[in-house]
């Protein structure tokens, strides 16, 4: 009885979560595009990645498969490396710019 309720609840919750996460990504995309500063974009991009992990997790439940876990992990790793890289870049680039001025 409880299990049945649970599974039907999950059936309802899952699409809701999907949509919520998707909307949340849209919001972040807006931030990426609008900025106004590059660190803002970096933050938003980083968060998009985090949300993507969430989305993939949801899809893993949806499909009942563990084959997507690689994707989750990979996003995590890439995101970290990517964000560090971008941050380093933003920092360095401007220092060089300063010298140029």
């Amino acid at each position, binding site marked *: 009885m*409880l*299990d049945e*309720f*649970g*599974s039907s*609840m*999950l059936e309802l*919750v*899952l699409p*809701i*979560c999907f949509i*919520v*996460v998707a*909307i*949340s*990504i849209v*919001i*972040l995309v*807006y*931030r990426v595009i609008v900025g106004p*500063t*590059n*660190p*803002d974009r*970096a*933050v*938003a991009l*980083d*968060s998009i990645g*985090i*949300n993507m*992990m*969430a989305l993939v*997790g*949801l899809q*893993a*439940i949806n499909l*009942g*498969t*563990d084959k997507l*876990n*690689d994707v*989750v*992990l990979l996003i*995590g*790793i890439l*995101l*970290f490396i990517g*964000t*560090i890289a*971008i*941050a*380093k*870049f*933003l*920092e360095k*680039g*401007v*220092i060089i710019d300063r010298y140029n001025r």
Partner: protein
Amino acid sequence: MIDIIVSVLLLLGAFFTLSGSLGILRFPDVYSRLHAATKAATLGVAGILLGAFVYLFVDVGIVSGKLLLGIFFVLITAPISGHMISRAAYNSGVELWHQTKKDHLKNELK
């Protein structure tokens, strides 16, 4: 029963995720946005992934170490990323919100 736990985890996760995004959307400057990103969003994804882990473990019978690792990884890296970005932002001269009260760092640099 387990499905209910999963559902709750998912809902919480989704809620935090959305909140984080809203924070990033609404907060006035990059530093405050970083607060939202490193906290709410991270917690959100941890919740959802935990939900996925539980679901796969109980309903499908798969122990997904990678998911756990993923959660762990996010928790570890999110603040580092946040730190890096904020430092980059500050060093590249991104201005604080006009209502910001104190800036000790500014004095330090001068």
